[in-house]
């Protein structure tokens, strides 16, 4: 029997994977993908919650789904801007590696 907990766990794992990716990978593009993973993990939980909380009118709580909608939009916009920055970086430095962009420090 599938409970709310299962979904939350899956989303949690996904979130963690994403975070691990941010911490472990050095390729900025992949880091960016990992960030997407984290956002979607959040989405999964949200949807799960919305499904779990049946409203009085017997429908799922659509507020959460609206929020998911917003998150997806924001994520998309973020990807656009982020990739633009990355491209600019690549033009300037011919690299997408985090080690290569550590001139500002201390």
């Amino acid at each position, binding site marked *: 029997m599938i409970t709310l907990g299962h979904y939350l766990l899956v989303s949690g794992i996904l*979130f963690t994977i994403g975070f691990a990716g941010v911490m472990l990978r050095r390729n900025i593009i992949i880091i*960016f993908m990992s960030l997407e993973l984290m956002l979607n993990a959040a989405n999964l939980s949200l949807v799960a919650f919305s499904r779990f909380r049946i409203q009085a009118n017997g429908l799922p709580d659509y507020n959460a789904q609206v929020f998911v909608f*917003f998150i997806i939009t924001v994520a998309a916009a973020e990807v656009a801007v982020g990739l633009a920055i990355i491209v600019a970086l690549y033009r300037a430095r011919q690299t997408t590696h985090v080690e290569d962009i550590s001139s500002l420090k201390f």
Partner: protein
Amino acid sequence: MISAPLLEVAVLLLGFAILLCESFAERIDKRTLAVAGIIGLGAVLLASFFLSPTPAPMPGPSLWSFYTADPLAVFFKRFALVTTILVLIMMIDYAPVVREFVHGTTKQSGLGEFFALPIFTCAGLMWMASAIDFIMIFVSLELVTMSFYVLVSFTRRNPATLEAGVKYLILSALSTGFLVYGITWIFGVTGETNLARVAIALANPAIERVPALFGMVLILVALGFKIAAVPFQLWVPDVYQGAPTPVTAFLSVGSKAAGFVVLLRVLQPFFMLPQMHRLLVGIALLTVLYGNLAALPQTNLKRLLAYSSIGHAGYLLIGVVSLSGVAVTFYLVGYLLMTLLSFAILIVVANQAGDEIRDFDGLGERAPFLAFGMLLAMASLAGVPFTAGFFGKFLIFDAALRHHETALVVAGVVTVACGFYYYFKVVRAMYWESSKALTPISLNPMSRIAITAMMIGIVALGVYP
């Protein structure tokens, strides 16, 4: 009488107008756009004094379940407007640098966007100021973040800037992730996103504490990132140093202030929990210590100011912990004045020399006016009486002592001494040393007015709060 949401609308329209001019009127000097923006924002600021009161929140969903125009919100709207105006003024001074690092078809290409984006950011800040719903918070905060992504890496020919941009991008996105996940959990527990209703739900003892706290903590992480609280401050020095200076100023004042107002709102329902209080005390302690200590060895003024802004975030947190809205507000105003003042002068000087502290050598002779302004700013940041900074600290300590936050107070005193050390390093450079170049530094009238205004403001707040 004007209904509060119209303010943002007006700001938006202003932004659109400037964009249109930028794209269709190639010929005009782009600086006029900035001036137009300044005037427009000024008008909005003026308008913000004729607001109709917030209607009583009617039952059922409506605009007012996301948006409030309570005094706090209105205050911070004005705060955002003033900040943006000043930032625009700085940007005019900064234009040559932009031109140097953004090659374009026309010699001023890119400037238009450079002037337009802050206005949208301003709108975002204003929405943040009156957001009382997590979704609203998320959206407006993302708007602000998004435009800062662009602004930070705006001068993209400059490698340092791009590096700053990327760092800001990744870490900020990371914090967004946590914000979202946190909101999710809050929603999961309470089934609400409106702060007021969340508070009601939390008041109910049947609610599970642990998940709620978990969600709250994740939200705190995101906000802590915005206000540069330890341990989420790591991006600050690099980004502040790399970003275009006006943007740095904007970051350190605008987004920080917005972060604080959101923090104040969000924490409201959670203060009754001891864990939360403990956490905040800890964070405040770390922040104030880290910022001030790590600032001691700095030699680059922008970076120094970055660390000091961490330190000030710490003082502000002390105020937050002591539940003293007045103190925090006052401190923020003082902080706005002195930080923007120092950045404004920094820009002017950096155009000639550079942004290392040693580039300020002998400013006392080169540009007495600027030097005196910097002296004032530094004194205020350090907390010398008869400046806004002193009163801010005074109120903060007062509040902290009232709540017997001994540890915080002790840390505060120690760090204030450190503050004297590193702020006076600048003063020393300006007055003790003698400079190589003795060319006087020019200053355009608008900035002069702005700087004078800020100096007067600092002293006025210091003498007559």
